[in-house]
């Protein structure tokens, strides 16, 4: 492999034997030293002391490193089509591969929006050309994500849409949401909601409260999130459709979802690293890179998000990767765009929960592999023989400082710039090919 280029999209078949790595199996909840034999696209064998013909297999020593299923990131904005100056499928796939994300699930807020099968096909065709991480799509719930008419959900599903969401917009009309849930129920589809009451958050920039008041910024109340979830739960109770809430950020949301799960409703949810790593104080000095949607909340909210992760209320951590060019962020706070990149920081941020909050390593890995994969109905995010070899090799201990300038993503708007972290992805395998090596 070329040393200068850590990426490899060659189609040359190479078989690998990963020796002596600590294999994290989120399915069996185990970590054991094992060898992993990759032949062609699939994991051929997984046990101690595998010996092979050295001419036919490339042997990689993984002693001191962990081997886990590749990350499934269920919330990524890829920029293409429409916003290629912020991110392209190629740059997003590079960022993903280097960050250990083997499956990207794109949000439909492209331009044009992913609201019909043809756009899914075009994205998949480009992703095949790039040939690094796997790229999956979600489709819009409503045409153009405008919240009025439901899209061809079933056709989009046939063409590969894993779920349906209006991305960074809430479906605020209860009647439309009810019909979408009802319609999706007919074919066991998944509806994903960005929970935010748009009338309440209109013009809002940050979390409503003392901090917003002192800064002189318009606030977004935290119940603007929980009231949409509560409303939707009535619809889910009625329709029994599978429902997933994206990037929850408040204490109340965690409590409502915890209760709904106890009730047995088919609900799942995810959060993103900023909501358990940062609070609203990161916005000091009007730091636009920390201007996110939903906004960073209070320390109490952050602690409750962590509790939600620890007790299993929160099923998934997704990066919520939202690339923005400099021109969209170097602006007065009110004019700057919402969102931050996250593909390349998802792994260390998740591992931070292991280091600082006693989350078990297998559970942490489940949050970014097995759980999203199961919610979306994918055959990845697991490590066992006969599955496609979507794997990563990472160093759990390696300390490093996040430097957005070194990101492979086209945009550098990370809210985590300059933070010290531990844990780094070293190698990424997708369908048995080593697509990234640091």
């Amino acid at each position, binding site marked *: 492999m070329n040393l200068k280029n850590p990426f490899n999209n060659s189609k040359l078949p190479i078989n690998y034997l990963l020796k002596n790595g600590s294999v994290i199996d989120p399915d069996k909840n185990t970590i054991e030293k094992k060898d992993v034999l990759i032949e062609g696209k699939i994991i051929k064998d997984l046990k101690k002391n595998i010996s092979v013909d050295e001419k036919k297999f490339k042997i990689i020593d993984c002693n001191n490193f962990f081997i886990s299923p590749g990350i499934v990131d269920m919330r990524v904005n890829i920029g293409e089509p429409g916003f290629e100056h912020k991110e392209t499928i190629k740059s997003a796939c590079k960022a993903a591969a280097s960050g250990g994300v083997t499956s990207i699930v794109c949000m439909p807020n492209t331009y044009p929006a992913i609201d019909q099968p043809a756009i899914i096909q075009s994205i998949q065709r480009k992703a095949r050309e790039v040939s690094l991480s796997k790229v999956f799509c979600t489709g819009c719930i*409503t*045409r153009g994500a405008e919240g*009025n*008419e*439901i*899209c*061809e*959900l*079933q*056709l989009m599903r046939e063409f590969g849409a894993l779920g349906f969401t209006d991305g960074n917009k809430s479906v605020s009309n209860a009647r439309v949401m009810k*019909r979408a849930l*009802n*319609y999706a*129920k*007919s*074919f066991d589809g998944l509806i994903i909601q960005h929970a935010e009451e748009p009338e309440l958050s209109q013009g809002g920039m940050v979390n409503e409260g003392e901090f917003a008041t002192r800064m002189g910024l318009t606030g977004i109340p935290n119940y603007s999130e929980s009231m949409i979830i509560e409303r939707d739960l009535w619809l889910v109770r*009625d*329709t029994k459709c599978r429902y997933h809430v994206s990037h929850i950020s408040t204490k109340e949301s965690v409590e409502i979802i915890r209760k709904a799960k106890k009730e047995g409703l088919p609900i799942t949810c995810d959060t993103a690293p900023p909501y358990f790593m940062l609070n609203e104080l990161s916005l000091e000095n009007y730091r636009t890179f920390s201007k996110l949607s939903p906004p960073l909340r209070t320390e109490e909210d952050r602690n409750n998000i962590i509790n939600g992760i620890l007790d299993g209320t929160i099923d998934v951590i997704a990066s919520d990767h939202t690339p923005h060019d400099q021109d969209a962020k170097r602006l007065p706070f009110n004019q700057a765009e919402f969102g931050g990149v996250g593909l390349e920081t998802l792994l260390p941020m998740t591992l931070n929960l292991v280091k600082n909050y006693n989350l078990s390593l297998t559970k942490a890995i489940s949050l970014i592999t097995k759980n999203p994969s199961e919610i979306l109905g994918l055959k990845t995010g697991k490590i066992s023989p006969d599955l496609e070899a979507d794997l990563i090799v990472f160093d759990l201990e390696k300390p490093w400082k996040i430097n957005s300038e070194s990101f492979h993503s086209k945009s550098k708007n990370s809210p985590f710039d300059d933070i010290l972290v531990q844990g780094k992805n070293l190698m990424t395998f997708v369908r048995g090919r080593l697509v990234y090596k640091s």
Partner: protein
Amino acid sequence: MTEEKVFKNYPHKHLLGIEGLLPDSINYLINLSKKYANYLEDNNQKLDDLKNKTCINLFFENSTRTRTSFELAGKKLGADMLNISVGTSSIKKGETLIDTAMTLNAMQPDLIVVRHNDAGAVKLLSEKVNCGVINAGDGPHEHPTQALLDSLTILRRKKTISGLKVAICGDIMHSRVARSNIHLLNTLGAEVRVIGPATLIPKEIESMGVKVFYKMKEGLKDVDVIIMLRLQLERMSGSFVPSIREYFRYYGLNNEKLKYAHSDALVLHPGPMNRGVEIDSELADDLDRSAIFEQVQMGVAVRMACLKALIKDK
């Protein structure tokens, strides 16, 4: 023609719906319809069963086939048929439904056939008149003569209704045809299923004695009769269903989906058809499988029977 040989009679003053009718009453109407159907096949002369009787067709909603069918049925029996089409605009002239009913009642007709776009409106009208009233469709509630003619058509092809598996497909929610058929087929002992996207299946319809399916493949398995329903244009784009092409792909009946059903399954459609929306054009024209035009034919006979049964000698 006489009716003594079959069942005793039709014991009600009105025909407002199928719900609540006993099997005897239904069978009486169907048998009388059969007789008229047989008569029409061999003769084109008018009968004088309803000579000197006056019947008013009062249609608050646009209709061609049902109104014409009633008109023709009445004329075949020698009755005087009056058509009153009350467009929605003229209702806005101010007369209430009850006033309209009382005005017509003063004209002393022998029967009024009413179609209205509101559920229950025909029943309200029937309470204010002295003569019998036939419901020719009230909103999404009931359309009893359609259900009767569907059953008559099925009977001509399948000999019996009891024990048949019948699937009603499409827009169940807004369909009076579906509701009347569910009642009638259940009363006569068929196993009734409804198939459609969940957005078009009304809540707790199971309580009407049907099984609900969301996929054609599962719902059509082994059925003997398929009743396709019309999907109205305004419901196709984004409100209840995303698009015509998606609807046709998953819920439109074509020869391929028909294979899931029993090999000699019969296809019915109350009309007017949307070719390429709920039914494939080729299938609609296949006279072995689809009885769509036979249904229209039976419609006249059924309406003759209903008129005859409800207009009683004073």
